[in-house]
C-alpha cells in the first residue's frame, strides 16, 4: 500500500480510541468492558455521566481504579486489576453475573478482537491451532449476551493485514453479533450491507481506509 504512506493522517492511539468510543455511551447504560483497550474506556466516561460498569466476576457498578494506598484486596475486576465500587454498586455470584450477561441485560459490551467479518462475526479468543493451551474466559457469553457488541481494535495487524474481513480466518467467538467497530482510523456500523463508515480520522481518504480493509466498506446511504 505505498500510496497511503504519504497521506497526512495520524492514527489514534489506544487512549484516543477508548475516548472516541466512550463518547458514544449514554448515561444509564450497563456496560461490560473487555481486557485491553476496552478497559481504558471507563477512564473516559466522566463520573457525573452515570454509566454502570459490570465485571463478569460479580461486580456491578465499578468505579475508577483506587490510589495505591486505597486498594481493597477483595475487590478486583475480570482482568484481575484492583477496582472500586461506586455508591449503588453491588456484588453477585458468578451464575447471577452471567445471567445478567446471557439474559440480555447489559446495554453494551466492548471487546477487543483479532478479526470482525462483514456479517458481524467476531474472532477474539484463539489465534491458531498451535499447542498453547486455549483460553476463552467470558468472551463467548458476552458476545452473544449483551444487547450491543462493539469492538475496539487496530485497523490492521502489525504486519499490515486487514482485521475487517469477508470471512473469519481465526476461530469464531460468536456469529453475527458485532454492531460497531472502533479502530484507530474510523468507526464502522455493521449493517446488512456490511461495514458502513460512520466517521474517519482527519486527513484519511475513504480509498486509503478501504485499502486497509479486506471487507468492502460503504458510505452511509
Amino acid at each position, binding site marked *: 500500500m505505498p500510496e497511503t504512506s504519504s497521506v497526512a493522517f495520524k492514527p489514534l492511539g489506544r487512549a484516543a480510541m477508548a475516548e472516541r468510543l466512550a463518547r458514544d455511551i449514554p448515561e444509564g447504560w450497563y456496560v461490560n468492558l473487555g481486557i485491553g483497550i476496552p478497559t481504558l474506556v471507563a477512564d473516559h466516561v466522566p463520573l*457525573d455521566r452515570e454509566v454502570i460498569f459490570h465485571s463478569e466476576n460479580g461486580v456491578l457498578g465499578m468505579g475508577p481504579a483506587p490510589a495505591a494506598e486505597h486498594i481493597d484486596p477483595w475487590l478486583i475486576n475480570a482482568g484481575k486489576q484492583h477496582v472500586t465500587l461506586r455508591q449503588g454498586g*453491588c456484588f*453477585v455470584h458468578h451464575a447471577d453475573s452471567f*445471567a445478567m450477561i446471557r439474559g440480555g441485560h447489559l446495554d453494551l459490551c466492548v471487546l477487543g478482537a483479532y478479526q470482525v467479518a462483514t456479517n458481524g462475526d467476531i474472532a477474539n479468543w484463539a489465534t491458531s491451532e498451535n499447542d498453547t493451551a486455549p483460553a476463552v474466559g467470558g468472551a463467548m457469553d458476552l458476545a452473544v449476551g449483551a444487547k450491543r457488541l462493539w469492538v475496539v481494535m487496530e485497523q490492521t495487524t502489525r504486519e499490515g493485514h486487514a482485521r475487517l474481513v469477508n470471512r473469519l480466518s481465526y476461530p469464531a467467538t460468536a456469529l453475527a453479533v458485532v454492531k460497531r467497530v472502533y479502530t484507530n482510523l474510523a468507526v464502522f456500523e455493521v449493517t446488512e450491507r456490511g461495514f458502513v463508515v460512520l466517521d474517519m480520522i482527519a486527513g484519511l481518504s475513504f480509498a486509503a481506509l478501504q485499502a486497509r480493509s479486506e471487507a468492502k466498506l460503504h458510505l452511509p446511504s
Partner: protein
Amino acid sequence: MINRIVRTMAEAMAGIADGAVVLLGGFGSVGQPQALIDGLIEHGAKDLTVVANNAGSGGEGLAKLLAMGRVRKIVCSYPRSPSATVFEDLYKAGRIELELVPQGTLAERMRAAGAGVQAFFTPTSYGTKLAAGKETREINGRNCVLEYALSGDVALIEAWQGDRWGNLTYRRSGRNFNPVMATAARLTVAQTQHIVELGALDAEAVVTPGIFVDRVIHVPYGDPPL
C-alpha cells in the same frame, strides 16, 4: 443522573399494552404488588396474560382484574383457594385460559428467561398430565421434560427498599417470586415500602440489582393483610 423513581402511577404504568404478558409477584398476600395491580386496572390494558403463583382471591387486586374481563389467560401453579371464586367462575364458564405449571418449574422458567437460557430439561412433572405433549429425555438416568423460558412484557413486583438506580431488597417471605420476575420482563416496575439514598443499601445484601428494574414507585402501605 439515573433516576428510576417515578412519582405517579400513570408513569409507572406507561406503555403497558393490550395483550401484554404481565408477571405478578407475591405468594399469598405477602409480597404482592397490590398498588401496581390497582394501577394496572386504572391503566386499562386488556387481553392480558397474567403469570402469578395464585389466581387471585377475594374481590380486590388480581381477582378484580379478572372480574373486569381484562385477562385472557393465566399461567400459575395454584389457582385454587377458598376465596378464589372469581377465577373459578370464569374458568368454569370457559372464559379464561389456564396454563397450570408446577411451582418450581414456573420459577425456573422465569429464571431461565432472565438468564438467557432458552430451555431446560427438568425431572419435574415427568410422567404426569402436566407433561402431556412435551418433549422428554432420559439424562443421567433421570427422566426429564423439556421446559421453555417464560418471559414477560412487564413485571409488577413488590419490594421493601429501593434506590434511584432501582436496587431492591425484600422483607422476609415477601421475597418469593419478586426477584425472579424482575429478571424475566422487558419492563420491571417495583412498588417499594421505602426509598433510600443511593449507597444506603449494603452492597453485599442487594437482592435485585437495579439492572433488572426500570421504574420504582414509593408505596408505603404497611403490612400485608393477615
